[in-house]
């Protein structure tokens, strides 16, 4: 793993008595694409704003490259931000927007002109120097905002839901562009979004947050395949979240039925959360399988069909398959033991944090 660049140490922050961040500790490494992912109000934007210098934490400190930057104002930090609503200077043309930071640093004219041309080329808007922001589309404005930030060669680029205001097609295109940009620039990206697809597509590391707490840190694959708690499983992709009882290692009981699984270390006869992804539920047209079910609804989703299947064990499964089963058909339900995810039931909010503290440091720090 690359060298650690940023470390949030025990950050807490409240607004008007509401605690937005609760003792957050997080490491970000050099040249890493980290995404803070979570629903609105989870504290992800506050975390980014603390890193950008726009908010001061109530408790804790922010370390950057070994130095404490907690109380350094934004204009003195070696990082730049791309804002959700672009925040371009409407009274300046594109070239002056991009040159803004370089002029403050007192770079000479030729250098600035070269850098403007280079950064416009990077974002695919060559020749836009003399245009004004008001004459640009949303996508073009966001590219200029990115050019304006990266032209300063920051060590870290902060992106606050930068694609949130763009339409779907443009958003998908920009995702690939951001990945390419990061590779060309070779700098650290800290990205904030509530869109799990964005997070999974672009990130090296995803930090899932909820209610001011980190729920899970991992690669997109980890987060999707091995969610650590019910919140993550539910937030990332779609899932069947079922109450179960861990009979013993590798055997879980749901709805009165014992199913083999591969998880261990959950004790004997303990209540657990069971997650089964909709694409992992296999349906058998001849009715063969440990669980019997009846299709109660079916919707075409493009790549697959999405069904609700009422089962004999009292659970309605969400199922995605490429096969079509008419409503009312009786099917057998199979789940591969590898596709049954077992998770601890959090006894309280704090219990979730302690889970984190036990698992994360060993992995990353």
């Amino acid at each position, binding site marked *: 793993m690359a060298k650690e660049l940023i470390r949030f140490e025990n950050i807490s922050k409240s607004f008007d008595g509401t605690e937005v961040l609760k003792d957050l500790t997080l490491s970000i490494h050099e040249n890493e694409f980290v995404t803070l992912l979570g629903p609105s109000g989870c504290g992800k934007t506050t975390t980014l704003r603390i890193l*950008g*210098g*726009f908010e001061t934490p109530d408790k804790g400190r922010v370390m950057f490259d070994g130095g404490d930057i907690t109380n350094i*104002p*934004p*204009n003195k930090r070696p990082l*730049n*931000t791309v*804002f*959700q*609503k672009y*925040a*371009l*200077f*409407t*009274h300046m043309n594109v070239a002056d927007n991009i040159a*803004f*930071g370089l002029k*403050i*640093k007192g770079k000479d004219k030729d250098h600035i002109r070269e850098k403007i041309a280079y950064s416009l080329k990077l974002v695919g808007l060559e020749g836009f120097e003399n245009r004004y922001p008001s004459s640009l589309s949303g996508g073009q404005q966001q590219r200029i*905002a990115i050019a*304006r*930030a990266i032209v*300063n060669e920051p060590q870290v680029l902060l992106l606050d839901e930068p694609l949130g205001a763009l339409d779907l097609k443009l958003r998908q295109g920009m995702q690939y562009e951001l990945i390419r940009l990061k590779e060309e620039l070779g700098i650290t990206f800290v990205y904030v979004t509530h869109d799990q697809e964005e997070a999974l597509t672009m990130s090296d590391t995803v930090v899932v947050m909820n209610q001011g707490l980190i729920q899970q840190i991992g690669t997109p694959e980890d987060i999707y395949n091995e969610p650590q708690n019910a919140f993550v499983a539910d937030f990332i992709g779609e899932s069947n979240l079922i109450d179960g009882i861990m009979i013993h290692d590798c055997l879980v009981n749901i709805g009165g039925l014992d199913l083999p699984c591969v998880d261990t270390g959950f004790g004997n006869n303990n209540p657990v959360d069971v997650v089964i992804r909709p694409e992992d539920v296999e349906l058998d047209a001849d009715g063969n399988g440990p669980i019997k079910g009846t299709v109660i609804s079916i919707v075409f989703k493009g790549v697959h069909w999405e069904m609700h299947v009422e089962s004999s064990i009292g659970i309605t499964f969400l199922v995605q398959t490429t096969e079509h089963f008419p409503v009312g058909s009786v099917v057998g339900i199979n789940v591969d033991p590898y596709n049954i995810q077992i998770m601890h039931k959090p006894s309280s909010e704090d219990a979730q944090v302690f889970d984190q503290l036990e698992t994360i440091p060993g992995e990353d720090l």
Partner: protein
Amino acid sequence: MNRSRTRFLATPYIIWVIGFTVIPLMFIVSKSLTDENGSLTLANLLAIFDPLHRKALVISVLLAFLSTVICILIAYPLAIILRGSRLTDKNLILFILILPMWMNFILRILALQLLISNNGIINNMLGHFGLPPLAIINTPAAIVLGMVYDYLPYMILPVLNSVLAIPQDVIEAAQDLGSDKKHVITRIIIPLSLGGVGSGITMVFVPSMTEFVIANILGGGKIQLLGNIIEQEFTVTRNWNLGSGLSVTLMAFVLITSLIFGRGTEDTATGITL
């Protein structure tokens, strides 16, 4: 909705404008172009070059300019401080600022006269502390003070509005790119609020330039603004032709200034146009 059905709603206003603006204006213009016998002449318009009138015009422009600059210098810091403050109720501050506007402006000027006259409240208080009296009354300074006192809200409102309308993330973007506080003010806040200043200038400069009541009360009749001369031509000398000629000249001046400063307002949606 049918346009012809709604158009009649403008009738009261059209009658008002024709009766009280268009017809008097035509009357003034026709008077300005004729002498007392009714024959055509340019003498009334050229009368502005008469040394007495020229001096009055220069003083009018100068005092109006000074008042406008002072209003800007007061309004901008206030707007920037209010923007930066964490006060949740900016409307309350705004209310306090525009409260004087609820009072008749002649009353306010008379009150100001009481305050700053040679035996007024301020000089009495200064005397108590053994300080020398201020001899402001009947000076150009008193007139400027009166103009600023009267017209300041008309500068504060549009300036404050346009400063408050600048999105917070634009200011944060500037800080993020390396701007310190001063740089943010000169490069972001001021350029982005020029529309409001344009409106403010129009609303302060124009009435200040045509002012004569403040000059009468606080200037003691010693300082002649062009407005005072026009007033006298109509009411004392009864030379309506000359009064009209000077009025038209002054109107042309006002129109030019409004055009210059009004243009900025169209470009930026942030300024209020009144």
